[in-house]
Each structure stands twice: as C-alpha cells, then as structure tokens.
C-alpha cells in the first residue's frame, strides 16, 4: 500500500544504496595502481610529492582515509580536487545543469520521437512504412554512438552549418545567459549532442512501444471496448498512451545512469561540459575525492530518479508496482 511506511522503507534503502555505491567506488579507485603524487602530471621533486601527499592526506591507510572521508561528508564537505585545483563541490555543481540539460533533452526526444514512431508503426503494422521504419530504427540502434556523433557533426555542423560544432554556448556573444538570444544559442548547441543520445534511445523506445502496443491491442479490455462500439481512437489514446508513459518511466530508470556519467564519449566529442567528462578525467588522473564525489552525486540522482519514478508508477497503477520491470527489456546502453 502506498503509504508513509513504504516511502520510509524506500528512503532508507536508497540511502543504503548510495552509501554502498560510494564505498565500492572508494575502494576501487584507491586499489587502482598509479598513485599519482596528488595528480601531478609532470615529474616532481620527490620531496614536493611527499609534501603534497601529506597535504591531501594520501599517505594514510585506506580505512583511515575512508573514515575521514565519511566524517567530512557528514559535515557537508565533499573534499578538494587536486587535479582541478578547486573544491569538488564547485566543480560538480557547475556540471550539473549541463548534464541535466543534455539528459532532459535526450529523454524528451527519446520519448516523443520513440512514442510517435511506435504508435505510427503499430497503426500500420507489417505494411511498408512499418517495415521501413522498423529497419531504420534497428539500424540506428546498432550504430556506435561516437560514430553517429561524428557523422552528425560532419553533416549538420560542418557541411550544412545548421548547428554549432561542439561546445555548450557561444563564448563570444553568450558566455552567460543574459537574453533570449542566448537562450536560443544554448538550445542550438544542445541539439546535436541531445540528438545523438536521443536518436539511439528513440530507436529503442520505438521498437519497444510498437511491441507493447501490439500486445495491448489483443488484450481483453481493448477487445471489449471495441465490441462495445467505443471509438477506436479513444481506446488507443487513453489506454495505450498512458501505458506508454508508464513503461517509459520504468525504462527511464535504467537509462538514467548512462545519461548521467556514461555519456562520456558524447561529452568529449561535443565538448559538452557535463558530469560524464568530469568523472572520466577524474578517473584518469586518479583524483580520488572527485571520483567518489561524482559517484555520490550521480548515484543520488539515479536513486532519487528511480524513487520518483516508482512513486509515479505506484500512484498511477497499483498493478504495476508488483510487475515493476516485467515488461522491461534489458535495454541498457
């Protein structure tokens, strides 16, 4: 039953999950070889190196470092990034809006396009448009994302010039968003990276939606409604759209982690200053505090997103609570 007890249980479980994730990442990154002398890429005087390690507390044992980290975390201190020379909280806070923009836009495209195509296909099942779109979606789904990214950049960025070549904003006119023009500028920069992520997602959603709608079409209540003479369109729109939304929310939980920190390739190619790139470079430079903090923030967002999704699902359809994940294909990226 949806109630305070359920919510409380889920909250506790969520916090436990986040904690487990952070511990796991902490151990993993510290166990990795290549203690980089506090992130210095150049060869440093060993005395300076030792001093830097002391400064950042890297010369203590791992359990001790972990304890100090947890204590600092409890006080709201995310630590200091020695590869970026600034507090971790600042570095991550700057990337969150960009990550959310990209993830949001990609999900929107994914949902709208995927849903639209899926419904369109289901309405013309096995006829030519269905076959063409079906094969097209399959093809796009099978492309490596970085290949698609480079292709889109070439065609729409360089050759046609419709969209900018990389970056999140125009550094000349709009380093800060202070007018409607700059809003449009930001949107224009968002299009290509979001399209790359969204197209692949939309292809998957379209396939899934088509199958789901063909499924539903045979279910009893649809047959009954038809038999009763209810207009077909109403049946389609109300039930299937709702189901589509709900199943999308379920699948969104699986896709969210990827969009947050897995979109590294996209962010690197498009020079998009998101959390994925930050996390990637943090791992490369063995910047311990930045890596664990990114894991913390990302998993919090994921777990929170999942919680929200489950709440919405539970509210909308009690049945779905039990079968959560039943119709979900393992469409992890």
């Amino acid at each position: 039953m949806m109630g305070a007890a359920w919510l409380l249980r889920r909250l506790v479980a969520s916090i436990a999950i986040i904690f487990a994730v952070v511990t796991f990442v902490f151990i993993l990154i510290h166990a990795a070889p290549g203690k980089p002398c506090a992130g210095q890429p150049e060869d440093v005087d060993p005395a300076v190196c030792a001093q830097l390690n002391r400064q950042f507390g890297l010369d203590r044992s791992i359990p001790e470092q972990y304890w100090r980290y947890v204590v600092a975390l409890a006080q709201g201190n995310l630590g200091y990034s020695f590869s970026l020379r600034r507090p971790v909280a600042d570095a991550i806070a700057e990337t969150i809006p960009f990550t959310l923009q990209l993830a949001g836009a990609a999900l929107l495209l994914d949902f709208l396009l995927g849903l639209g195509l899926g419904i369109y296909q289901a309405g013309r099942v096995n006829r030519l448009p269905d076959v063409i779109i079906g094969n097209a979606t399959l093809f796009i789904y099978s492309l490596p994302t970085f290949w698609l990214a480079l292709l889109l950049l070439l065609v729409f960025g360089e050759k046609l010039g419709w969209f900018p070549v990389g970056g999140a904003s125009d550094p000349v006119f709009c380093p800060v968003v202070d007018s409607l023009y700059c809003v449009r500028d930001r949107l224009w920069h968002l299009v290509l990276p979001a399209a790359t992520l969204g197209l692949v997602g939309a292809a998957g959603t379209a396939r899934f939606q088509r199958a789901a709608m063909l499924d539903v079409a045979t279910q009893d209540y649809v047959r009954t409604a038809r038999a009763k003479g209810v207009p077909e369109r109403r049946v389609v729109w109300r039930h299937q759209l709702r189901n589509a939304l709900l199943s999308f929310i379920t699948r969104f939980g699986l896709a969210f982690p990827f969009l947050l920190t897995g979109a590294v390739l996209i962010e690197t190619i498009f020079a998009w200053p998101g959390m994925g790139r930050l996390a990637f470079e943090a791992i490369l430079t063995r910047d311990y505090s930045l890596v664990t903090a990114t894991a913390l923030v990302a998993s919090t967002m994921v777990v929170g997103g999942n919680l929200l999704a489950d709440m919405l699902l539970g509210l909308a359809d009690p049945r779905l609570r039990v079968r959560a994940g039943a119709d979900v294909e393992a469409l992890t990226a």
Partner: protein
Amino acid sequence: MLSAMLRRFHLTSFIFLAVAALAPAGCERRGGCTGPNCGTLIDAAVTEPPTLLPPSTEDIVANDIGEQLFLKLADVGMSTNTVGDEDFQPLLAQKWEWDGPLTLVFHLDPRARWQDGPRVTAADVEFTFNAYTDSAVGSPFRPKLHRIASVTQRDSLTTVFRFKEKYPEMFYDAVYHMRILPAHLLRPVPRDQWKTAAFGRQPVGDGPYRFVRWQAAQSIELVADSTFFLGRPGIRRLIWRITPNLQVAVQQAIADEADVREQLVTPDNVARARAAPQLSVYPFRGSVYTLLLFNLRASDDTTKPHPIFSDRTLRRALSMAVDRASLVKSALGDLGKVPPGPMSELLGIWDPDIRQLPFDTALAARILNGQGWRDHDGDGIRDKDGQPLAFHILVPTSSVLRRQYARLLQEQFRALGVHVEIDELEPSVVNQRAATGKFDTIILSRQNDPSPSSGIAQSWTRAGFGGSNFGRYYSADFEQLVDRAVTATSRDQARALWRRAMETVNADAPGVFLYALENVGAVHKRIENVQFRPDSWAALLRTWRIPPDRMIDRDRVER
C-alpha cells in the same frame, strides 16, 4: 487531458509556434565596436590548463595564455637565437648592461604597471626569482635557473642578477624562463600552496591582456589592455575555447567557429584546412620531437641493469632495424622530419649531417645472430637460453599519433624477430611509470626550449636521474662534451661540441629518435600581421590585427 489538448492544437503547430517565438531573437545582435582595435580571436584549444600561475605548470595552453598576461624581462626574437643579447627584445626591462663578467643589471620600464594599479618594481623581480627557485613551490623551471646565484634590487627600478659562472647563454637564462609575478599579491600565499592557489584561476598580470573569466571546461577569456605601455594590442578579445577532441577542434576552425588552430598535426587535417576558404595555413619550425626511449635499468628495480637494453650492442641493433624515414612518410607525410638526434628543428644545432645509426635490417639481424639471439624454436621470435627477445612499449592513450607509431614499430620489430607488446594506458599512469622507471620502452614527446643547454642536460645526464632522464642513460663522454659546449666561448666552437655530443648519444642509442613535428597552424584569413614565433606561437599575438573593413560579426561585439 493530454488527448484533449492534442486534439485542439496539433503538436506540430505548437512546435512551429515555439520556434517562431525564438527565431526573431536570433536577429538580435549586440555590439557596435568599430575601428582598428576591435576583434575577437577564438583559439580552439585541446587541453584545459590546470592553473594560470606560471611557475606552477609547464602546460602549453597555460604558457600561451601566460604570454598575454605576464611579461618577461626580455624575450627572444624571431630568429630564436639564444646566445648573447643582441637578438633579444626588451619587454619589462627597458635596457640592461653588464657590470662585470658575472653581473647583469636590468633597468625596468617605469611605465609598466600591474593591472590592479601598482607599478612593477625590482622587488617583484627579486620575489619572482626566489619563488621560482624555491623547492616548496616545486616549479619545473627550477633546474633551468641553477646557474644564477642571486637576484637583488638596487633600487625600485633596477635589478641585479649574479651568476655562478660565465657562459654564452647567461642573458637567455636570466630572461627566458621566468615570468615576473606580482609580489604584493603573491607574498601572502604560502609557497607550498602555489599549485592550488586561487590566483592561478584569477590571475593579475602586467601584460598586454587582462584576465576576464574562466568558465570551467569551456573557455578562458582575455581582453586587451588599451593602455599597455608597449603598444595597444590589435585584437580586443582573446578566447581559448576548450575542445578535447583534436578532430572536432580542427572542425571548429573549418566551420568558422574558431579563428586559430595552432597545430593541425596530421596531413588529413592540413589538407582539410587548406581546402577551407576562410583559413590560411602557416607552417613554422616545430619545437617538439618524439622518441622511443629505452630503459637502461630493469623495469622492476632501477638498481639492476635491464636484461635487454643495458646492452649497448643490442640497443644499436634494435635502432638499426627501424625504418624511421618510412615511418615519418607514412604517419606524417611532409609534416615531420627524422631528427638527427634528440632535438627538434627549433634548436640551432639541428644538422642533418650529424652522424646517426643507419637503417640496415641485415646488419641488425647479423648483430643479433652474433649475440646468440636466434629463432631456435621456429615461432618467429628470436630467443636465447630459452628467453624470447620481447619487450613492452608504453604509450599514452591521449595521443593518436604516438599510438599509431607504437603499432608501426611493433611491426618493424616483428620483421626482425622481436616480439613487442603495446601497453596503452592513461597519461597520468604513463607519466608516473616514466618517473619511477617502471617500463621497458616508452614513446615520449619532448618540447624543446630555444636552447639545448637546459633540456638536453636534464634529459640525458646523471643530473636528470629521478627527473627527466627516465631511461637513466649516462655517458661520461657525453656529459663532458655538454659541459664544454654550454660554456664554450664562441658560437662555432659550441656548435662543434654539440655536434660531437649528439653523435655520442646517437652512437649509444639510448632510444630511437622517431620524428620532429613540423608545425602547421591555421588562422582565419581576415587576420593580418600573423607571426608565429617557433618556440611559442602566441608570443606575438598582440601584434596581430584585424583591419576594420574585414571585421565579421564576432569582431564587433562590445562588452
């Protein structure tokens, strides 16, 4: 609900309205800067500097930006000659004279000012020298200043350099390595925290440009100081735009979203840049060379000799098996040359006639046979006493060119019967392994200063053990020749000594010197007076100009 709304407004018309609402906003353009000192220059940079505080980093982009923010006392000219002081351009120092064989006196320009107001004084110079040589700061430039005994101030505009010994490049050492820092702003910062100081993210300098903003992972913006005492810079705004993928950075230049890409690197990129109508292509002497460095000590224990590479004859044989000219032709086309030693073309001692090991696979095979390395078990790999002739090449994942070379080399050695494995690891791990000697061979790129005396000594002598001499190469002959070359009194004598030193290194084969990059940069055609100084392309940025009749939209922005 949703269905009702959709029935009223078609989704398509909704989108259309949204786009139409935003489109007119696209016509809005701010700005009305006119005249000869407007202009915006966008550089497509590939890395983001860790800090902008000059002594704390050797990062190239940090150096380029540092050129605009901070002044040196004087700088080399276009000839990059580092001997004597005739070819140097005065910057912070208006004039200088020698007060005895070991004492150099600079008179600072009284017009020089820090951007927050105070004058630049000799106290700043003294402070800078102490900071650069302080081990707590840990500056990578510190070893280059070891021949200067002290820097003191005689009065507020006169500064005195005292040297430990007399040698031809005293002036160069005094002026080239240090950018003068504001004592009044940096004195309060504890020396051991300079690497992480906030000043590094919001620098205040005395140069032709002022720092405006640094948007993390996106861009760094500078604006011209119109009262700069050596002349107002031609271009008003400089923006370094950070794009990690080199190909996309080049693409930005081609798509007219960036004005400068100072290094195109590959022949493909150069061809595409040439084909772009709005770009001009500028080749200039490269300052980087790349080598396959052999580790002369064991990879797991630096006190023991390496089983393969401690043997000079083996090293020579392996070096002779590499067809360096073909490798350069294949990977770089015309954009690289085979270096006659551990140097780039920037160095004056570059001389294709320096004696090197020949490319001779037959001779290499004979030598290996003679040493007992034969293929006894028929697997295609030479072996001796049951051990195969095999080693690893360490290469960072960040460089496409070096990874390509690793594969090319793997094949070259395979033809000789040597089994090579490639370890592609992240740059930080590679650097760490290099510094601690945990590698067999490593493909390294080295950037030269205009003079061989600092870099070469660090990289190939015993002073560099634990420093840049990762392979721990040591030759008493070489060290002696280098010492004599650095202190030689005449240029010809120095050249001859450097030549003999290079020939010694070549004969000892501590590595295979693979290629020296010819730099090719692309710059937007509208920009005039483009000069690339070979050791630092951005050194003369302040003299570049955009004529008013060639301005485009982004030049006219006024903020």
